[in-house]
């Protein structure tokens, strides 16, 4: 008889990231995945779900509370360790680097748990990359808006065309070795001060 599939509890206040991990685990064939966003009442949930593996955001401020709860559960013979094999330093480093921490019921075989922890690490990294890209896209959009506004100011004040205004901004950026969006921002700021 194959061993029953492991019960995985994902605790993450970030609902999007939690969904990404949840989806990854399900795609990998894990049926018993529970996602919790709010740690209030978590003791009850842990009792219900009886997780074999708990995955949590490293930066969650409630980790000390959760670890204390796991420690107390030692009394009922359910000790939980960061990883099955504590000597697996590389795996621990990869997890901490990715910003994820994992707790595993002691006694589980490494090969059963490692794919779950690896999946969490991969998905955490994927989420961080996504968040970074979103941030970059947002700032690219904002930069374009800044340049458009600066062009408008130059066109009005100097009575020049849009193309000439852009050329002026670009030249200033090159001469000062700064980004065109920074030049635009300075111009908008200066123009705002002069208008007051």
């Amino acid at each position, binding site marked *: 008889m194959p061993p029953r599939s492991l019960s995985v509890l994902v605790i993450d206040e970030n609902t999007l990231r939690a969904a990404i991990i949840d989806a990854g685990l399900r795609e990998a064939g894990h049926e018993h995945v529970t996602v919790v966003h709010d740690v*209030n009442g978590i003791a009850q949930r842990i009792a219900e779900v009886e997780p074999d593996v708990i995955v949590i955001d*490293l*930066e*969650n*401020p*409630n*980790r*000390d*509370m959760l*670890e*204390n*709860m*796991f*420690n107390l559960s030692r009394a009922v013979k359910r000790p*939980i*360790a*960061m990883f099955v094999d*504590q*000597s697996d*330093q590389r795996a*621990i*480093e990869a997890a*901490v*680097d990715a910003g994820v*921490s994992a*707790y595993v019921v002691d006694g589980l075989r490494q090969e059963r748990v490692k794919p779950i922890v690896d999946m969490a690490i991969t998905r955490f990294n994927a989420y961080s990359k996504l968040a970074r890209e979103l941030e970059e896209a947002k700032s690219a959009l904002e930069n374009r808006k800044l340049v458009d506004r600066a062009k408008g100011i130059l066109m009005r004040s100097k009575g020049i065309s849009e193309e000439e205004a852009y050329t002026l901004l670009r030249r200033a950026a090159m001469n000062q070795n700064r980004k065109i969006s920074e030049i635009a921002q300075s111009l908008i700021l200066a123009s705002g001060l002069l208008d007051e």
Partner: protein
Amino acid sequence: MSEHHITAGFLPLTDSAILVAAREKGFAAAEGVDLTLVRESSWASIRDRIAVGHFEVAHMLAPMPIAANLRLTPMRLDLIAPLALGLGGNAVTVSNALWQAMERTGAKGPDNPAAVGIALRNVIEDRRGRGSDRLRFGVVHPHSGHNFELRYWLAACGIDPERDVDITVVPPPLTADAMAAGRIDGFCVGEPWNSVAVAAGHARIATVKAAIWRSSPEKVLGVRADWAAAHSETLARLLRALYRAAAWCGQAENHEEMAVILSAEAYLGQPAKLLLGALDGRLETGNGIHRFADFFLPVEKAATFPWQSHALWFYSQMVRWGQVPHGEANAEKARASFRPDIYRTALGPLGAALPSASMKVEGALKAPTPVGATSGRLILGPDGFFDGAVFDPTELDSYIAGQRSAGTGD
């Protein structure tokens, strides 16, 4: 460029002041140390990041290195504490409703932990008679001065911390919210989080660590043992910088500047006015400003010295509350977690008055007393426990045997 780079993790607490001052006031730079400080959100995160080498050192609860070396934590990690980050700095704060009930049964000022504790016991007995829920107290970590001093105080006042109350773990920045939401009735936490709860109108300071056990240990500089062994010179530079920073923090005329530095978003992100109270030892209790003797000592009374008797007292409390079984090997691991030898070697060149002994009898000094020092004049004490008990580290077995332990309820 400096060759000595150190990254230190810290939690947003007033007793991170010595680390922050070492960076912000140039004491680290003067020792050639490029000190980076990273704010963390839990002690677990500090532990994990020091374990994988993100941090070489960190602001730590004094019992944390002991717990790590005793393998009580879910990560294999050897830590040492070569310097303490001051004495005192905590308070026990209760909700307004609980304080009112305690006042009716005799609680008065926060200077008298015995009277406050007896009032609390009366409230607990009254609630039991009426079939009310057990009171819930928050502490920041099971291996913390907060947990041990709260339990010590309760037990000495005839309250069984295991049966008469529920003790739960709440992260320091969430204590005020947890109280406002009614999830806890009281907590023992470091500043500024007592003052934050009082300022928000939720709570009263019932008593303080300095009244439960005067001149008692709280945070240490936790250092990864393998890093310390391989970088003794860099560590010595950091210890000298921290000692000088502590001396700066200890001067009353610098408290305001320190409060302003700590108030920055990267550090505590709380109003400087709320931070100043702990530095000055003058706290708003919810019933006016109260002056506490030795509330937080950054440097005086050998406040940065890593007393091995402090390590053993914490160990005795770990045994008392069932965290670890007592045995000679365990006691030795606990004692050796604190490293006065490294402290003396590093600080020797400063010519400061350092204790000659590595252990002392805790609770023995009723008044400020000159003690043996490597050079100059060193004053220790008073250092009494509020119940008059004395901890002699050379009589560890009998002290442990004499403690009322977990679950015995006698």
